[in-house]
């Protein structure tokens, strides 16, 4: 079965992970711009990060037969630094126009401050202007209240509901998100309450319409194989193959295709790759024999 991990921070992962993802059936990933683990000190570091997401990281993914797209934004945590926020908001009209940018995100709230709310609203305006979907990060603390605040800001913006993916849902928030016509994303983490079996139960209860699953794997304790593992958990709960395929392939593909920048037909087959190729003279190899492949059969 083809799978799309719509929220995974591959910049923080190794080439081993790319190999494991491809072997497990992941054919496409979307990498949202996010918090790097420590505060950035100036706007320029955002620029280099954005450039690496549309450049080197895309190349790296394709060298392992995986399509790579990304979402760009200032993350909620850093919106509280006024100079940074102003600078990044000025830059976004340039970077949101790059070919592989398929949404504005992650935007949303963290500490739920007024500054975070202003930056979130400004970024939704940009998404509307550039006809891009949005990826909403809901807070990990005070989740229910914070999610509601995010939804209020989204609603006030007037963006079309089908252009909204609200992430990090749980059983408590998913129904409210679906009722508003938004896509409901779920980040499945290992060794936490939100493991694959719990996600499978959510899928069993709420069905497949606008339900999305991701690993949100990053530099912390996380597992890039959470989408394939959730597929297995859903099979164990006797969810039909058609519904599973909708959740892990058709939904994320259809959501990001609304950007007009994702060629659905192209994504149906793996990108052919040749590891002898270079990106600005850089290779993913360290002396190993290059592997190459034509388009893989699904």
């Amino acid at each position, binding site marked *: 079965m083809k799978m799309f991990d719509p929220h995974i921070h591959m910049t923080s992962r190794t080439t081993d992970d790319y190999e494991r993802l491809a072997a497990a059936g992941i054919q496409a990933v979307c990498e949202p711009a996010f918090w790097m683990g420590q505060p950035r000190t100036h706007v320029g570091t955002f*620029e280099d990060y954005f*450039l690496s997401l*549309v*450049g080197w990281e895309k190349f790296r993914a394709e060298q392992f037969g995986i399509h790579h797209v990304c979402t760009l934004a200032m993350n909620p945590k850093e919106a509280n630094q006024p100079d940074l926020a102003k600078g990044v908001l*000025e*830059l*976004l*009209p*340039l*970077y*949101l*126009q*790059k*070919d592989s940018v398929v949404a504005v995100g992650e935007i949303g709230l963290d500490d739920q401050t007024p500054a975070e709310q202003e930056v979130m609203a400004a970024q939704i305006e940009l998404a509307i202007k550039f006809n891009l979907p949005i990826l909403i990060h809901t807070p990990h603390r005070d989740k229910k209240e914070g999610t509601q605040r995010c939804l209020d800001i989204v609603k006030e913006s007037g963006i079309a509901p089908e252009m909204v993916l609200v992430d990090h849902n749980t059983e408590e928030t998913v129904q409210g998100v679906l009722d508003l016509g938004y896509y409901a994303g779920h980040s499945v983490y290992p060794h936490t309450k939100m493991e694959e079996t719990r996600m499978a139960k959510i899928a069993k209860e709420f069905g497949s319409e606008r339900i999305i699953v991701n690993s949100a794997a990053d530099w912390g304790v996380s597992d890039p194989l959470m989408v394939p593992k959730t597929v297995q958990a859903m099979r164990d709960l006797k969810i039909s193959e058609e519904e599973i395929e909708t959740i892990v392939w058709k939904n994320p593909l259809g959501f990001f295709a609304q950007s007009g*920048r994702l060629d659905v037909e192209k994504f149906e087959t793996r990108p052919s790759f040749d590891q002898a190729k270079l990106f*600005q*003279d*850089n290779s993913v190899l360290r002396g190993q024999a290059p592997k190459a492949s034509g388009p893989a059969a699904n």
Partner: protein
Amino acid sequence: MQNQIHIQRFAEENVSEIYKAVRQLIVPGQSHYERLGIFASLHRAWGDDPVRATGKAAASWAAQFSQPFPFFFNKTDWARLLFLIMASEHDADFLTAETFDSMIRRGDHSEQITLAKILFYLPEAGEYRQTAERMIATNSSDVFKSLAHHNPYPMAYFSDLMFQQMVLKALFIDLPSRPILGLDQRANAELFRMANDYVREREIASRSVPRGFAYIESLQAEARA
């Protein structure tokens, strides 16, 4: 701006769909970064199809320009060139040496290749010489090739030293040297010495002679005759 007027006239007559679409993109009040974003997005809109000039179009180009028609421009290159020319007309402060430098740094591979190709036809093209000379150091052979091959810019603006370095790099990465415009005019004793030294180093190390050397050798022979 005379060249840019001719380019717009040529585009209006021969690639009118691009000309009309780009003209509509010039809107008052656009921020600097919005303009750079539009420049980037034009690849999505126009793609990589080449633009040919035959018959009347070729004659029209030849009547205005001493340089050959840029057959290596694709539709995106034309759209981006027209956008920069029109944006500069609209806002004289937009396209400066600093802007050009920033576009190279912030541009993806496709943008850098376009900028290398269209550089010669931009307003005040000589102002971008320093950035263009630094582009020789690019790690991308595609960007380098766009600058070095069939491109009138280096011949017209590069210093002797940087022109020579460009020719040497072409040898170093084994590109042919005949497509370097103006090489026959700018080749001099210093360039011949550099090329000969490089080839000699390779021969001593039992490595092959770069394919671009034959043409330089022929120029050297002509110069001696």
